[in-house]
């Protein structure tokens, strides 16, 4: 059975992609303002927590984790992970056009490969159909809920 996603679920995937990439970029921007942190001056991490860019980055990454978990509750890991890797493309574009970093030919090629990879899974079913909702082999993983 082909499992297709509703528009609302595509929005969740979009939220996963955007919160992860924008959150990382905000953190990166904030940390360049804070300065390099080393083992000798770990206290600087507390100063970083007062930086508005770092705070908004952390808030977005919390939003990322919530939407990522929601996506995993109705789609396969091997569907969600390549989809979210589209965030690498967003980060590259943000760093090029917002942080004005240089993007080499290799990086553009990497971006093209990721877009192609995402295109492959996006066309397929999102969830593997099982006769029973059994997913993880407890005997193999050895974990009790």
């Amino acid at each position, binding site marked *: 059975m082909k499992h297709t996603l509703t528009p*609302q679920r595509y929005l969740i995937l979009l939220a996963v992609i955007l919160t992860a990439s924008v959150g990382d970029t905000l953190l990166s921007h904030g940390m360049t303002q804070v300065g390099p942190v080393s083992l000798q001056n770990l206290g600087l991490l507390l100063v970083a927590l007062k930086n508005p860019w770092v705070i908004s980055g952390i808030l977005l990454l919390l939003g990322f984790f919530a939407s990522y*978990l*929601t996506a*995993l*509750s*109705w789609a*396969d*890991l*091997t*569907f*969600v*992970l*390549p989809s979210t*890797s589209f965030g*690498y493309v967003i980060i*590259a574009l943000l760093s090029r056009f917002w942080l004005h970093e240089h993007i*080499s030919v*290799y*990086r553009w*090629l*990497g*971006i*093209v*490969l*990721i877009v*192609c*990879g*995402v295109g*492959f*899974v996006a*066309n*397929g*079913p999102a969830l*593997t159909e*099982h006769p029973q*909702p*059994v*997913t*993880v*082999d407890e005997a*193999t*993983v050895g*974990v*009790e*809920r």
Partner: protein
Amino acid sequence: MTHAGPVETWATIFSVAGTAIAGDVLTAGAMRRIGDLDLIRAQHGMLGAIRAVLGSGMFLLGVLSMAVSFFALLFTLSNVDVSLAAPASASLTFIGNAAAAKIFLKENVDRRRWIAALFVCAGVALLAR
């Protein structure tokens, strides 16, 4: 900056990827067991959904694995060049996740998904150049 031998370099990179894969598979397995979060939220509200997630031992073990992976990455980055450590661990995690999802989560990892994993893996390696 690399001042670790090849064995130590790859041992740390593999430990980063291994714990990341364990974290991803455990959280994904936990979410599959818990069920559709949209439905749970509709029935029991946001707090009910949060309680369902945080009450899962498998989920907490997954988060613990992710945390161990993060610190293993920090340790690796202090001994190995970031241009090798970051893309190598990310690429290994992608391929390993496809295999682990097939074995442990019984996901249907067909040719389309393998190709996607390989493309993304190669793309990540190129991005780090």
